[in-house]
């Protein structure tokens, strides 16, 4: 009898692993588009938008980390350094009721519209509409209407399994694989070690609340869970940018903000080409050289993340260092004119996957990392 039960649990778990892997890919897929918007504005000429996007990106990285912690806690294994892990941008996000594209495009109204689509809370009616999907490789398919509902389904799955098979059988992952709050993290929220149902549900709540707001509210739950300053959730923060006005105490989810007006300088952006690809740039051009370097760096970075979430948690500090390198390299790319647009547009970070055996060492790669990143 117990063999059958065990077998059933294993089958359920396969499904759970798949969903959590999708969660990781989903969290990751938002990062390049958010970064592109972040890189194409200036801290001084768009201070508000710069800070909003910066903190959202940081929190998306937290979400990805939390999703990995949950997957590891239930005995799964995050797969990060693999060609399917990166969507081809513009990426298709395929929800139950709509699908739309999210691209690597410069900071603009269409970019923020797509971000609002991504972060849309269940109860929220969109007052914007992102681009309809044209259908691309590796779409991210969700059976639910929002990210919140997607995570809600995972929650139900976890609760069901714990009720059926007991907490210990469900959360049988190796604890040493967890990323702990002692590791680096530098923004709102905190890393949560997941080792039982309670912590798994908490981690999911943090992810959902930071994105969509704690149920029926424009605020996330950082204040409740971590004693941090009250913070407006991602969807609403993007809406603040979109309408140029902050929310204030008492504002409700389905109404526009009524707080302080903020200046959004839609014109003060870097004129980056849409969805840059290294191969679009002439061989030998500055744009091509830096784009190739960027893809190399990005792929090295994914490898490092993969190792981080598969037992070498202390590598996260190095991954963070690489992220800063990516930021500085992206700023160089954004100084490189693209030849066939007569210099009116510039290149940008392509976020393309380089297979392991085609990765190169660069002089900017930290020595200690070189051995970690070598193909094995």
């Amino acid at each position: 009898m117990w063999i059958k039960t065990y077998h059933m649990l294993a089958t359920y778990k396969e499904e759970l692993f798949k969903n959590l892997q999708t969660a990781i890919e989903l969290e990751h897929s938002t990062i390049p588009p958010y970064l592109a918007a972040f890189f194409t504005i200036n801290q001084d000429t768009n201070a508000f938008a710069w800070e909003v996007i910066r903190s959202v990106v940081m929190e998306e990285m937290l979400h990805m980390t939390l999703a990995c912690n949950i997957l590891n806690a239930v005995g799964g294994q995050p797969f990060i350094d693999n060609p399917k892990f990166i969507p081809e941008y513009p990426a298709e996000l395929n929800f139950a009721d709509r699908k739309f594209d999210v691209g690597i495009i410069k900071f603009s109204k269409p970019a923020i519209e797509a971000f609002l689509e991504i972060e849309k809370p269940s109860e929220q009616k969109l007052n914007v509409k992102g681009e309809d999907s044209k259908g691309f490789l590796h779409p991210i398919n969700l059976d639910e209407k929002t990210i919140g509902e997607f995570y809600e389904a995972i929650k139900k799955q976890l609760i069901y399994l714990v009720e059926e098979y007991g907490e210990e059988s469900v959360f049988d992952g190796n604890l040493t694989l967890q990323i702990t709050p002692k590791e680096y993290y530098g923004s709102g929220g905190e890393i949560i070690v997941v080792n039982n149902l309670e912590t798994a549900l908490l981690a999911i709540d943090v992810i959902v609340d930071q994105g969509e707001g704690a149920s029926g509210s424009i605020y996330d739950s950082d204040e409740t869970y971590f004693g941090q300053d009250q913070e407006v959730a991602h969807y609403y923060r993007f809406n603040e940018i979109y309408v140029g006005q902050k929310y204030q105490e008492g504002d409700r989810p389905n109404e526009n903000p009524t707080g302080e007006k903020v200046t959004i300088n839609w014109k003060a952006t870097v004129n980056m080409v849409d969805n840059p690809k290294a191969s679009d740039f002439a061989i030998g051009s500055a744009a091509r050289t830096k784009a190739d370097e960027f893809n190399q760096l990005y792929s090295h970075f994914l490898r490092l993340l993969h190792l981080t979430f598969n037992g070498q948690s202390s590598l996260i500090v190095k991954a963070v260092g690489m992220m800063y390198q990516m930021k500085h390299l992206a700023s160089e790319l954004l100084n490189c004119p693209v030849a066939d647009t007569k210099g009116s547009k510039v290149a940008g970070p392509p976020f393309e996957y380089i297979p392991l055996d085609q990765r190169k060492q660069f002089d900017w790669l930290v020595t200690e990392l070189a051995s970690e990143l070598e193909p094995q």
Partner: protein
Amino acid sequence: MKTPPLEPIEVFEKLSIILTGFSKADIIGTGMLQTYFDTIHTELEEGLFFELLFEVQKITVTNPEQPSTDELQNISELVSHSKYETAISQIIQLWYLGEWVFSPTSDQNYIISSQSYLEGLIWKSIAAHPMGGKQPGFGTWGFAPLTFSSDSTNKLT
């Protein structure tokens, strides 16, 4: 085969690659090429900049990123030429420090802009980052320095 004459800004790009020892991608990546061209044009005495560019155009350098020994010899002559010596030093300092340096002790020296300071090539050349910018991230200072160490085989050639 005759190559079409280069625009002054293209000659300046070539000169900048040769003088700084950085790649074309690094030079363009600073976003400062046109600004520096204009600064030098304004600061150098009438005509000197274009005379220098004219001289540079005459020197054949097949690949400015990897000048041959002979090519380097020709450039060295230009660098030590009494007429251009100061200007060339100022151009290198402009690229390396983002600053127009009349003389190291002059109080007329000025930083072109915040961007020029942050894009100063000196920081890249010492495998660091500008003090106060392009931060490398938490804890990175505890790692071994970057790989192109002088005692490794990766030495720049």
